[in-house]
């Protein structure tokens, strides 16, 4: 790990002013950043610890039913907040399907949005990676790329965004509140992360020095609470990043779909919201045929970036299944294995 200076400001203004210095990085729980510093991928000259900033660790409801989640709220605290989980069950399920209990106790909402790709070539400083070292090339293109992107990738970068939490955020029209040298502004969640294009090193639309203060959920996002799921296929049952995941949410009225939301994870460099597929579902009945059609629309532009054509068919099936699960209804209790397609019946020991 490189040497760095450490400061621990007590106001947002002080933090933002501190970030003006070149080479500065904000530090929250550090579950991703400290790891990347240990392996030499991140080399900040100065860490600005934002965990002691006041007012960023609350879940605040407005009378209209919208909610603001502070950037320093820990993943576990948000997932187990009863009112939040009742109103936004797919978000709670996504949070609980990610990482481990220890990491969820530490990792923050703001940090989750800022986490970096888990592409092995990005993490290996001996490999070429345009995201880590612009202009150096992309060793993933000819490498072990079965888990890489199938949507929105470019010849410069085929990495995926690893977050579970961000997938339902994209589906539910969340808004990111940020503060920077130019003051405060809102960024719609869908335009927070960027596709690689020819500048994969620019991962978000944050301006230099901008700090995430919180994420807002509009009141309308709660209309899906009775029919919301997050489904995540992993290469082992728990504690793994998604191969493909989907957040599906339906607003059903008298047997027909009044509103629909759909986003797919682990297929692109950003959580992939699919509005065309949502629009196709509106007004129809929640049938397997309708869901299959939505999945076709969702993946119309997909193409393999390597040995990963299977992810397109897998995403199709995960979408259909997530929509079908959403139509069945949000489970009364959080499943024993949140987000998992392989949850066995509760109370049964699978090691007989």
């Amino acid at each position: 790990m490189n040497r760095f200076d450490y400061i621990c400001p007590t106001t947002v203004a002080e933090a933002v002013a501190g970030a003006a210095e070149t080479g500065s990085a904000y530090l929250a729980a550090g579950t991703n950043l400290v790891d990347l510093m240990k392996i030499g991928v991140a080399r900040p000259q100065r860490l600005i610890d934002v965990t002691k900033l006041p007012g960023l660790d609350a879940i605040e409801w407005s009378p209209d039913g919208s909610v603001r989640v502070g950037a320093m709220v820990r993943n576990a605290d948000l997932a187990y907040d009863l009112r939040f989980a009742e109103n936004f069950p797919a978000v709670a399920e996504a949070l609980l399907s990610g990482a481990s209990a220890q990491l969820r106790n530490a990792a923050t909402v703001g940090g989750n949005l800022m986490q970096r790709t888990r592409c092995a070539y990005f993490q290996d400083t001996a490999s070429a990676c345009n995201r880590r070292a612009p202009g150096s090339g992309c060793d993933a293109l000819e490498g072990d790329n079965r888990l890489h992107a199938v949507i929105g990738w470019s010849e410069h970068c085929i990495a995926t965004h690893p977050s579970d939490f961000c997938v339902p955020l994209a589906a539910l029209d969340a808004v990111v509140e940020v503060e920077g040298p130019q003051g405060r502004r809102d960024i719609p969640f869908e335009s927070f992360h960027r596709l690689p294009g020819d500048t994969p090193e620019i991962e978000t639309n944050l301006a230099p020095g901008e700090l995430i203060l919180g994420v807002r959920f509009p009141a309308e996002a709660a209309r899906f609470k009775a029919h919301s799921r997050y489904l995540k296929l992993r290469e082992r049952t728990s504690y793994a990043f998604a191969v493909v995941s989907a957040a599906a949410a339906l607003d059903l009225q008298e047997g027909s779909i009044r509103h629909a939301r759909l986003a797919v994870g682990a297929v692109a460099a950003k959580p992939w919201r699919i509005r065309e597929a949502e629009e196709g579902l509106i007004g129809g009945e929640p049938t397997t045929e309708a869901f299959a059609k939505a999945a076709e629309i969702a993946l119309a532009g997909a193409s393999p970036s390597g040995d990963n054509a299977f992810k397109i068919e897998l995403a199709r099936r995960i979408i259909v299944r997530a929509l079908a699960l959403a139509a069945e209804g949000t489970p009364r209790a959080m499943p024993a294995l949140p987000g998992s397609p392989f949850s066995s019946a509760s109370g049964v020991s699978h090691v007989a």
Partner: protein
Amino acid sequence: MTLSISLTINGQPKTIALDDPRVTLLDLLRERLYLTGTKKGCDRGQCGACTVLVDGRRMNSCLSLAVSLNGTEVTTIEGLAEGDDLHPVQAAFIECDGFQCGYCTPGQIMSAVGLISEGHAGDDPERVRELMSGNLCRCGAYQGITEAVLEAQRTLKEQKERDAA
């Protein structure tokens, strides 16, 4: 740059001078305070061997910069037993054969203590396994670990009911 931090470690308040902000909580515990019960496995948050409680919550000490934890209370495996009386989770790991080589065990036990106080598993072994998935055991003692967590949870519940009565 020397940074001074205050930590309460296993009930004892300590003021610690750090000459370098790079020190993780794990390295502070092991290399500077000689509390070597907490183990370094992967040092990247993937194995759970370094799990300790920070303000009562289980966390990976390898991914936390010590300087960022100023003012917190840390509990390690050394802080669980009261004299010769093992903590119920420690006793249950022995009773249920919840380990073989023992290297991951301090992390497993601290994680189990955290899991039980979080209270989300009920008596469901599937939920226990899921909520212990951040602790790897290369010997594969998972069956015993799951039983130990459930057993310790029952013991702690009975203790609590006795104390309340």
